[in-house]
């Protein structure tokens, strides 16, 4: 399963090519879901699709280079009993995690979700839920 790891950069760490060097070193593809980095530091959200041991190794490498990491343990649920495929959520989703299929069903790809929660109140029948665990 894809794990999502949030990296927190302090101001001085933004000058080093840490992400690139870890990709090069491990050869693991790290998918950047969301990034907000300025001169004052910032955050990058990664999706890592690899076995647990490899993910743990990558987290360790970031920690060794002075990056604070946090594994995001959240889940988004689409209650298919409640959802009637109106698609109100579709155009609000910034990553395309929510989309309409060819037969106009709403489909959720949890791997793409960055838990921004904009979809949650937009659902007219409260079929979308984000839970923390």
């Amino acid at each position: 399963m894809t794990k999502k790891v949030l990296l927190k950069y302090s101001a001085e760490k933004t000058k080093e090519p840490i992400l690139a060097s870890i990709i090069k070193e491990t050869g693991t593809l790290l998918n950047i879901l969301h990034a907000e980095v300025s001169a004052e530091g910032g955050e990058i959200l990664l999706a890592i699709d690899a076995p647990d041991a490899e993910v743990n190794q990558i987290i360790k490498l970031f920690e060794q280079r002075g990056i604070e990491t946090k594994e995001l343990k959240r889940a988004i649920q689409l209650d298919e009993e409640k959802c009637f495929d109106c698609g109100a959520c579709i155009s609000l989703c910034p990553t395309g995690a929510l989309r309409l299929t060819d037969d106009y069903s709403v489909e959720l790809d949890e791997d793409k979700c960055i838990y921004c929660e904009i979809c949650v109140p937009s659902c007219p029948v409260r079929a979308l839920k984000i839970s923390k665990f």
Partner: protein
Amino acid sequence: MEKYKYQYLQHFFKFGGIELTKTKVNKSIAEINDRIKRGDAVVVTAEEMVEIVRERGEVEAAKEVDIVTTGTFGAMCSSGAWLNFGHADPPIKMQRVWLNDVEAYSGVAAVDAYIGATQLSETRDFEYGGGHVIEDLVRGKEIKVKAIAYGTDCYPRKELETIVTKDDLNQAVLCNPRSAYQRYVAATNSRDETIYTYMGTLLPNYSNVTYSGSGALSPLHNDPNYETIGVGTRIFLGGAQGYIFWEGTQHAPTKAMGTIMTIGNLKEMDARYIRGATIEGYGTSLYVGLGIPIPIINERVAKTTGISDEEIRVDLTDYGVPRRERPILKEVTYAELKSGRVEVEGKEVPVSPLSSLKQAREIAGILKNWIEDKKFFLAQTVEGLSTDQVFKPIKQIAAAPVAKDLMTREVVTARPSDSITSAAKIFAKRNFDHLPIVDEKGKLVGIVTSWNIAVAVGTGKRKLSEILTSKVIVASEDEPIDAIARKFETHRISGVPVVGTGGELRGILTSEDLSKLIGRRRR
């Protein structure tokens, strides 16, 4: 009634010109019903009909097809239900009545009430409203009823509290003043902030588009001349068989925005097609499933049922402007909208349908099955629908005030290069809180408040350019006061500079100016 008879005749007279040339195919409703009875009526959905007409032409299509089914499943805010509770002992003449804390209209005799879809709960705000009460009734759930009255000799009781389900009610009738808009505008937002509208959540700077309606499956768009649709037409309504009983409110046939009034037995409906809804920042509504069977009486009707998503155009409208006449950016087709992406102001943005296209298709399919299974027969209309009714705005005896009516024109301003101390002196001399900062051409570049000055003095800043807020919430001269009051509320501010189209400062408007005007209004 006379007026309608006249319109009906006029309507046929209009088609009479065409009838003189004779349609090649002519079928009556009775003939088509006979075919349904015999089990050999040919029924297709409006989506299937597009291909049939395109391939074979309308004459062959009219010979072959007897009925085209349509469907839509969208938020229909102008919906509600009439309920009759029966009499209590001792009896009560309900003056006000609440169902699960949602007030229903009871200004009709004794124990009748109308629960409207957009009425909000008095305890749960936007999370629950009349639409949800209607869905809960359909689901057979228990509803808490509370009524009060003033008491009379014949109805002495003053209070009543009880719990009912739909089975306990004498009548529960869905009765919608406006259903099934023929088509509806698409929405986007020019403002630099997200807005919450009945057209859903609209992201800043034209970043998404929403629309409603089922396009080629749209019930009224498949017979836009109302040649077969009228008073008495039997329809699919909320999973049961219902009827059209009049033109809908705001019916605007000349703008291809016709509507219908619909009625049906709520007790027979299915909660899959009647859903209470919360529209963020707007309120509650009711999603209603509706389908109309269009009898193919001749090739003219075959042709209109052959309409495709590519041919149905709507205005892409800027909901960022809170006026009755909203700016139109361009025309888009339902085909573009259904593709999921539309180009707005040079960028391609995602689209949300708001009404369920999947369930619209499902409803057209169910209606087709009902007819094929001989469970549904066509009804002969008893009156036509108006084809020339115009949707007028409300008659206002006084125009709503706009910014330029109330703003202060003599505004004290400063330049970015001015010192903090000079600004502090201005604030000390005059009693106001907002100091607009302008450049040499009089264009607004920022704002400084008395609070900013106090902080600046404390932290040793020198020039206004160091402390001014450059992202200023502004108003235009023609902006309605109601919209500006809302800006004050949302942004928690107490004043706005009023600017011209080039950003030049024209005046200033503060909450004090507004309070003079709106102080007497209820929140």
